[in-house]
């Protein structure tokens, strides 16, 4: 088990096209289902209204981190932050990163979302490297343990 999510996706479109879809706030809105108030600016908050059916009453909030053209777009946010009555700002956000790499017939897009544990990255990496087998082996131990009990 890991405390981060990683998705790799091969897109049949050049990095320039993917970059525009990621960082043009109107294009971003069409696939992310959010109507943003304005363009993305590194270091600045981005806000908008969610357009996903059933969640139109919810505000979408993120803080843009990095915009390295055709290479990296990242922002921090609170996943599942959909209750208007809750103030999520006190919680440590997760980091979402979109990395682009040109490949033969298009673009390799690698998405990661990390920081689910609020622990400084260095210490976390150390903890998750523990033992040769690492964390996945521990998870296997735990799974075996549960199975034996069942």
């Amino acid at each position, binding site marked *: 088990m890991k405390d981060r999510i990683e*998705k790799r*996706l091969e897109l049949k479109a050049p990095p320039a096209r993917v970059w525009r879809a990621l960082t043009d706030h109107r294009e971003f809105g069409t696939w992310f289902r959010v109507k943003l108030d304005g363009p993305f600016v590194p270091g600045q908050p981005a806000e908008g209204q969610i357009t996903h059916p059933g969640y139109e009453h919810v505000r979408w909030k993120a803080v843009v981190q990095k915009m390295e053209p055709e290479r990296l777009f990242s922002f921090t946010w609170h996943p*599942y932050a959909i209750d208007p009555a809750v103030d999520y700002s006190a919680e*440590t956000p997760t980091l979402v990163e979109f990395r682009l790499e040109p490949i033969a017939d298009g673009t390799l897009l690698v998405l990661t979302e990390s920081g689910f*544990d609020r622990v400084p990255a260095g210490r976390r990496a150390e903890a998750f490297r523990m033992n040769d087998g690492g964390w996945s082996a521990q998870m296997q131990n735990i799974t*075996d343990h549960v199975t034996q009990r069942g």
Partner: protein
Amino acid sequence: MSRSAVEGGVALRRHHAAVFSALGDETRLALVAALAAGAPRSIAQLTGGSRITRQAITKHLRVLESVGVVRSARRGRHSLFELDPAPLTEMQEYLGRVAEQWDQVLGRLKSLVES
């Protein structure tokens, strides 16, 4: 994503952050690994072979207990500690749901740029 899954996620998220955080420590992760072997163990058994004091181990066990990963029961003069894997399984399910949402979002991105 279903509405209930998302709403459930809000409440669970906070707990998950606490569980992840509790596990983000080498000693505690080692304790979880030791307890994952199965049998309930005493503090003395868990301290054996390590350089860490009983007191420190007890403190780490209490942290794990506070997030529900470990539970203890008194057996005579000793407390025995055992693993409760439920929060770990829940966490994995939570990450699974967030990952599933990304699949849907990225699917829409793919359609857009490839059209």
